[in-house]
């Protein structure tokens, strides 16, 4: 069952802290225009179905696809909305893949769209509302509303990431300087990506370490911005993709394995992840996706990786957990330039989520950039030829993961 699925194109809107010139639907249409510009023989009328998603509570519209139907060209077309928080973009991309793979009659070409206009809402309240439901039960277990408010303000500042950073730093014995080095590489890369948000061509490690702590061990200079932006990807069948572009990118494996929540348990209980940097879900997702794609030695077979890392410690952690590097060696790779643009295994050459974070789009921009790197059409193109690449997403309460393995050759077995 199933068939081969290809990515034929991907597009972005410009990202910035305030895209005050456009409404949400107009922002989305910018990304669609950019996506279709790369496949001149295709028009919006040729799209058979749509898959969409964003993180609705961050910008105050429920199921915004209903409103933006016309702006996407989705009038009288099939449409499905997928949202999973931080991984939304990745989940939408996987949704686009499955929509093509399912071989539904008449549905061959899919536009997958992830977007977010965070300047419309209040990001920290949005983040607090992730945990609020679960924290409110504590009131019935003897914790007063005053104490709850305190807990919320402590948690909302940066959420669960700092706990994870402490865990990871202890495990791999890295210093804050190692973290800053990751940030510097990302922001330099962002400066060469036209749609990126925090473009800092002259940033130094000292600059990052000069900024104050937001919550230990993370500093202001290390965390991602809140951006407005959208991303669109075109999924289609093998045959159509060959007609549309020179190098069709095959999606060979996908995975989105969920784990128990970390830091905060549900229904007032304890949290199941004892070590938040262990990331069983990420390892299982990688296993699943690599298994489908027939990849046995990720380090040897993968040429490029885009991982979802709003915080530098996560970038180091993910590339280890996804099987690209030996445990606790990731920071060395940044020191020796393995992960740089002209390195052996370049990571996040778009600047990553660390430089541009429009939440609902972020996890889709990862596979989108990876696919463009394979096609040779990326904004900050790596000099070496990329055959196989991965795009990864992270979200939820450090428990949701998305993973997509792409290549210029089909390796997924159809049975």
């Amino acid at each position, binding site marked *: 069952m199933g068939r081969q699925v290809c990515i034929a194109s991907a597009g972005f809107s410009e990202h910035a802290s305030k*895209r*005050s*010139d*456009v*409404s*949400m*639907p*107009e922002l989305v*249409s910018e990304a669609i*225009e950019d996506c279709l510009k790369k496949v001149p023989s295709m*028009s*919006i*009328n040729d799209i058979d179905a749509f898959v969409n998603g964003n993180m609705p*509570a961050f*910008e*105050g*519209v429920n199921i915004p696809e209903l409103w933006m*139907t*016309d*702006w996407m*060209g989705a*009038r009288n077309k099939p449409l499905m909305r997928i949202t999973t928080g931080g991984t939304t973009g990745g989940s939408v991309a996987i949704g686009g893949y499955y929509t093509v793979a399912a071989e539904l009659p008449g549905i061959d070409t899919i536009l997958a769209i992830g977007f977010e*206009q965070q*300047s*419309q*809402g*209040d990001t920290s*309240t*949005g983040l*607090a*509302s992730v945990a*609020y439901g679960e924290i*409110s*039960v504590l*009131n*019935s277990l003897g914790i007063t*509303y005053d104490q*709850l*408010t305190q807990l*919320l303000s402590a948690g909302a500042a940066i959420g669960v990431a700092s706990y994870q950073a402490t865990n990871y730093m202890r495990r791999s014995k890295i210093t804050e300087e190692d973290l800053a080095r990751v940030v510097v590489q990302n922001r330099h890369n962002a400066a060469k990506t036209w749609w990126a948000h925090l473009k800092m061509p002259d940033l130094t490690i000292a600059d990052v370490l000069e900024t104050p702590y937001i919550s230990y061990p993370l500093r202001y200079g290390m965390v991602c911005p809140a951006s407005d932006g959208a991303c669109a990807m075109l999924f289609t069948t093998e045959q159509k993709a060959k007609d549309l572009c020179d190098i069709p990118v095959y999606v060979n494996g996908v995975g989105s394995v969920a784990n128990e929540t970390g830091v905060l348990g549900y229904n007032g209980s304890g949290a199941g992840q004892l070590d938040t940097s262990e990331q069983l879900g990420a390892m299982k997702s990688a296993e699943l996706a690599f298994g489908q794609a027939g990849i046995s030695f990720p380090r040897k077979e993968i040429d490029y990786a885009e991982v979802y890392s709003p915080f530098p410690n996560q970038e180091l952690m993910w590339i280890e957990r996804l099987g690209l590097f030996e445990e606790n060696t990731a920071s060395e790779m940044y020191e020796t330039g393995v992960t740089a643009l002209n390195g052996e295994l370049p990571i996040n050459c778009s600047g990553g989520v660390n430089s541009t974070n429009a939440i609902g789009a972020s996890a889709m921009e990862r596979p989108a950039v990876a696919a463009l790197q394979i096609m040779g059409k990326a904004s900050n193109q790596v000099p070496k030829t990329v055959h196989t690449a991965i795009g990864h997403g992270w979200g939820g309460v450090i428990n949701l993961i998305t993973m997509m393995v792409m290549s210029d050759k089909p390796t997924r077995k159809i049975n």
Partner: protein
Amino acid sequence: MTEKIVVANKGLIKADFAFWVGRYMDKLFDAFENKKIVGNKCPKCGDVFVPPRKICGKCNVTIPFDQNWVNLPNTGILKNYTITYYKINDRTSRKVKKPQIIGMVQIDGSNTSIIYRLLDMEPEEVKVGMKLKIIWEEKPKGDPSDIKGFVKF
């Protein structure tokens, strides 16, 4: 077996939003400030839209921002209406004593309808197809509530 205990705790926080209207809608609200209505026209099918928009959903063509603007009159035709006793806002929906008549009005010269209250009318008087005229707020602020409603013309 012990008795089941289910608690229902109230929420605490509130999230505020400020929705960017974009350049196309901004132009409409600029006109609202002068108690006027503008629409824009699809270059392909010729339909005129109120509120103006970037893309014609029927033809899937982009309407350029710097052209195809159409000034529209303050009059229109009633296409549909309903009478409700509910008042809704972001926080609550509550029943009100006096019913409000809400009408779907096609502004003359446009091809779409907008939805506003019908004022100074008894439910029995309302007829689909009747001619209506906009009543503007005295001091328009440049937002959708500048149109107070429609009356018979």
